[in-house]
């Protein structure tokens, strides 16, 4: 869900950079050195997960998992996602320097929203509730990211409205897939290592 270089207007880029810088700064402030290996290693997991391609009908998509990232890392999700996207930029040229701010914000803000919405819920005693919430978490995170990508396009210029609509529609199946995967994944963590969910 990266927006390529050269598309967005200067005001949108600048807004993205300043919002991301502020949020990353806050995230770093909240993270002490002791948490460094944890944030870094979980951030690596999300980076690696983004390399996993899962079949979806005739084509395949890669995992995003920003919902789980948010629930597990809280505000550290901002620096973690920034680092992961920067690595993708240098290694695979997915995105570049100027869009790093916007792209990070589009991925990480939904993560933080999921953190506040579901952080409690996924620790509920009731298995069924957890499963449903986890599904919504995965679904919503991708939906919000899609909406933000669309918004960034629309703020750049009216002519992008069509493109923005398509971005959201194209992500609908991905939302469902991410929801299912997130539900199974949270279920796995609950069974195997419930401590991880206790941020």
């Amino acid at each position, binding site marked *: 869900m990266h*927006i*390529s*270089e*050269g*598309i*967005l207007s*200067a005001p949108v*880029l600048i807004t993205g950079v300043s919002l991301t810088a502020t949020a*990353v700064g806050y995230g*770093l402030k909240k993270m002490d*050195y*002791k948490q*460094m*290996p*944890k944030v*870094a*290693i*979980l*951030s*690596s*997991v999300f*980076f*690696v997960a983004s*390399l*996993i391609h*899962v*079949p979806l009908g005739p084509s395949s998509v890669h*995992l995003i*998992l920003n919902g*789980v990232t948010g629930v597990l890392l809280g505000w550290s999700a901002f*620096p*973690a996602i*920034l*680092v*992961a996207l920067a*690595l993708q*930029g*240098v*290694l695979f*040229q*997915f995105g*570049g*320097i100027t869009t790093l701010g916007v792209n990070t914000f589009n991925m990480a803000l939904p993560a933080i929203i999921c953190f506040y919405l579901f952080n409690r819920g996924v620790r509920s005693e009731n298995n069924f509730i957890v499963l449903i919430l986890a599904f919504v978490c995965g679904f919503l995170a991708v939906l919000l990211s899609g909406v933000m990508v669309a918004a960034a396009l629309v703020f750049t210029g*009216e002519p*992008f*409205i*069509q*493109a923005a609509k*398509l971005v959201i529609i194209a992500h609908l199946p991905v939302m469902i897939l991410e929801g*299912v*995967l*997130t539900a*199974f*994944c949270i*279920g*796995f*963590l609950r069974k*195997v*290592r419930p401590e*991880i969910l206790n941020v």
Partner: protein
Amino acid sequence: MIKEKFSEGDSFFHKLDPRVKIIVALFFSVIVAVTDKYTSLSGGLLFAVGAVAVARLRTKEIVSRLLVVNSFIFFLWLMLPFTFPGKNIYTLGSLNISQEGIKYAFLITIKSNSIILAGIALLSTSSIFNLVHALRHLHFPDKLTQLFFFTYRYTQTIHSEYIRLNNAIKIRGFKARTNFHTYRTYAYLVGMMLVRSYDRSKRVYNAMLCRGFKGKFWTLNHFVFKKSELITGIMMISYIIGLVLLP
């Protein structure tokens, strides 16, 4: 293993101080991203293509990267000419193709490719570790650079962990399809990676403590700033400023 495909080589750009490269790349990207003048952008594209040529990278790799980048651009080409208001130059059924729309899509294509090419020539020719060291020298927040350093190192471990787990599902006859069994399997795989990573992160931190870690990373290799590299950097930046001043 995740390979840094462009980082090996001994071209001019491979040897150039990564600090200079980061500053030039940043400067270049911002200028190109906000400029709308054809003359400036042509000069920018020239710079980017020239830089890639000087870096002597494998054309095939470059092309494959550009293909990925341009897939989103291609998608814009399918819409912008129809949705951008402007002089109608052709009518396709009920759709009007506007001249401004085509111009705009063209502009985006040049910008995007220039920035990506310059990024490859300037940034991807350094190893991630050198880039991160350079960021430290450029006074990036210490915590952020350390996070970078760590994330990348464990990206490799976790990636090979992923490869091994993926091998484990392969040798047991797994075939990926669009169904619950597949999604559950991948979710378990990610879940297992998360659990193991979480525990590993604790052990790694302990190992660091045992080796006298006190919250600061000392580096073994330091860059020495060479005057000639400073001059190279100033020359490249002058060229980029020149681009903006073009009519």
